[in-house]
């Protein structure tokens, strides 16, 4: 009131302001009153809804009454099993996980804030009922899975693997008045497991290109999948002497329940077109995805296995590149977490098909030998100074030999942009590529980024800086009409000479 007395001429203006303020405060308080008091109030909030599909497989296995279980019940049970991996808040776990099942959850001590903790990650889960009570109130499920035990030291950011097991568990569920609850989670058998490669040794030289259709790069590749353009490009790449290409599987399109089958069918078609031209393909997984959290692993594993299941034995498949430039995520996700994830994905693939050659496309020679003992071929990218390309390759090869024996070393991305602040420079691009390619005769595979320019580069690819996006658009070695730029000419010359080594070997 004293304020109003001091400024009586503003009283009429202040009053509506005060009224509006009071209204806003009331609205805020009303909103707060409607907010849930707990983080999870309903089971559907607890169960992950990431992609609309479960990471696990359910088989009825011919057990009596199993077929009578409604899909909603099966989904709820699967949701309970998968949620148990994530260490949910105490209030929720108390109500749906009881007794021994609740205790099993607490063995994953990483759900607490303890600086050091132990946890198990369950992958490749196959679930089948072993008993369904006649009135559908009791269900026993048997789960076969890969269990990976980790010890996490948060203070040091270290993750140590303590063991990998193939295990069988039995879980029991009961239908109560508040819905399904899990009462037990017990191990029936566990065997230490190792998933070694049975892939054939790659002893042929590969000259290739990284490929997206220029009208549908990155995430548009699989949604638009311009078949005519792709086949024309494959013919063109073949005419340049390329015997291989590297493509990228869009994670979102291949994990969404609504598009996954379409994606897999298109991937198979792509490999068929490549096989018809005797072009081998490196399929790079987890494109545009940099999330390594433990909670995603089972879905990631299911994703990679679904791809391997579809194309693992395809004649056109050269290798699976598990992750493009995973080392760029070290800073955000932590190197131990990224490496643990990569190891888990490798085992996942090999548990499905051990003959598929695996690699990891590191962004830099510095990281090229990480996990070298485990991959079938080494691959890294070299966008550093042209000078020293051969030294870096020699160092990588020497280190690989000392660490992991004679494994092929691929440079799966090299290239230069024509962009410069004062305009395009095709000659410089050609010169630099030519100089770099000439230093790579000892590589086992060389893949250039990229066939054509891209009209549109999204901010999700290289960020918001306009010069970065402009740079990224102009890496092509050929014009849209397939006339060759100087870099294309250099590439064509290189492929002939490089692949002649194959003939000499034969």
């Amino acid at each position: 009131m004293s304020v109003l007395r001091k400024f009586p001429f503003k009283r009429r203006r202040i009053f509506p302001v005060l009224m509006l303020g009071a209204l806003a405060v009331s609205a805020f308080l009303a909103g707060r009153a409607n907010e849930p008091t707990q983080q999870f109030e309903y089971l559907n909030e607890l169960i992950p809804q990431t992609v609309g599909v479960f990471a696990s497989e359910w088989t009825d296995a011919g057990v009596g009454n199993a077929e009578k279980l409604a899909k909603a019940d099966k989904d709820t049970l699967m949701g309970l099993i998968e949620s148990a991996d994530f260490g949910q808040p105490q209030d929720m776990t108390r109500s749906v996980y009881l007794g021994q099942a609740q205790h099993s959850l607490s063995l994953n001590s990483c759900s607490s804030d303890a600086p050091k903790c132990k946890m198990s990650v369950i992958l490749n889960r196959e679930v089948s009922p072993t008993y369904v009570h006649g009135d559908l109130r009791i269900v026993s499920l048997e789960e076969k899975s890969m269990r990976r035990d980790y010890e996490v030291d948060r203070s040091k950011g270290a993750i140590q693997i303590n063991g990998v097991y193939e295990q069988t568990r039995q879980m029991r569920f009961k239908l109560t008045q508040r819905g399904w609850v899990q009462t037990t989670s017990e191990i029936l058998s566990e065997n230490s497991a190792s998933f070694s490669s049975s892939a054939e040794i790659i002893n042929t030289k590969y000259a290739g290109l990284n490929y997206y259709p220029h009208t549908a790069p990155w995430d548009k590749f699989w949604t638009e999948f311009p078949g005519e353009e792709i086949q024309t490009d494959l013919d063109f790449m073949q005419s340049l002497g390329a015997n291989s290409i590297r493509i990228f599987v869009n994670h979102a399109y291949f994990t969404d329940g609504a598009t996954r089958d379409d994606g897999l069918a298109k991937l198979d078609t792509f490999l068929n077109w490549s096989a018809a031209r005797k072009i081998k393909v490196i399929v790079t997984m987890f494109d545009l995805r940099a999330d390594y959290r433990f909670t995603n692993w089972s879905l990631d594993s299911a994703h990679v296995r679904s791809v391997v299941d579809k194309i693992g034995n395809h004649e056109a498949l050269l290798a699976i590149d598990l992750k493009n430039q995973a080392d760029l995520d070290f800073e955000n996700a932590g190197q131990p977490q990224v490496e643990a994830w990569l190891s888990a994905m490798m085992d996942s693939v090999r548990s499905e098909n051990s003959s598929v050659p695996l690699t990891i496309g590191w962004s830099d020679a510095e990281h090229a030998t990480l996990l070298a003992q485990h991959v079938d071929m080494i691959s890294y990218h070299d966008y550093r100074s042209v000078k020293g390309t051969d030294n870096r390759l020699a160092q990588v090869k020497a280190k690989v030999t000392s660490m992991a024996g004679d494994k092929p070393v691929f440079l799966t991305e090299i290239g230069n942009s024509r962009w410069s602040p004062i305009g395009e420079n095709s000659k410089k691009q050609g010169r630099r590529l030519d100089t770099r390619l000439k230093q790579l005769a000892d590589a086992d595979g060389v893949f250039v980024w990229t066939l054509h320019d891209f009209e549109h580069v999204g901010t999700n690819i290289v960020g918001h800086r306009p010069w970065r996006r402009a740079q990224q658009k102009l890496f092509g070695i050929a014009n849209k009409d397939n006339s060759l730029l100087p870099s294309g000419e250099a590439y064509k010359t290189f492929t002939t000479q490089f692949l002649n080594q194959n003939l000499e070997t034969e």
Partner: protein
Amino acid sequence: MKRICFYITMSLLTFESSALTTKASVKSPRCLLDNSAAICKTERLNLYVGPQSVEPGEPLYIAVETVNNQGGSGNSNNVVIVDTFSGREYFADVKHGLAHLEITAPIQAGRITFISRDYDIISNEAEVLVHAAIPDDFKLVLEKEKNQLFVSSSIITDKFGNMIEDGQAAQIVVSSRGALAEVFSTQLVSGRLNFRIKCSALPQSESSLSVNLRGVSTKINIPPYMCGGHSR
């Protein structure tokens, strides 16, 4: 010196009790893997019988959980399930902490109680209600009472002789030459259907009365002379 001895004794006692606590709180998810461990001994039996309400001769599903003191699967090899109604015993092997079997509900209606046991360990009781099946054919009797008709049935039972439970509704339809004259319902009392119809509610021509109880119908003709047309 006394104080030092006291502290040493207390700390040893504390250590002992914390060790015991730790041991007691160890819960093993591995009892099915190595069920010889003492910790996996069956401490409790949980008995489930369902459905909780059945008709004679329908299947009854029995499950017995053997539970150790940690809430996990106990290491029993087999259990006995006793139908306390008939005294009959059923034996079931336990696999992975669960024994189950399917039996047929007795033909005699009533409450039956099951228990299960493994030597001296007795489970909870599980009760099942066996109720009468669909009614067997039944007869209706008409009697004249002044200006109304008294209709009564015999005691209605199912095919096993179980009296149909009281309170069940029967639908009564009175019709004449295909036209509905009266529709009403009544409930079963002491196993019988008893109801009255006023003569004024009946058509003057010959009519019929149909009674439907749980899908079983009985029909009876009402000759015009029963009410004699006098009531009108």
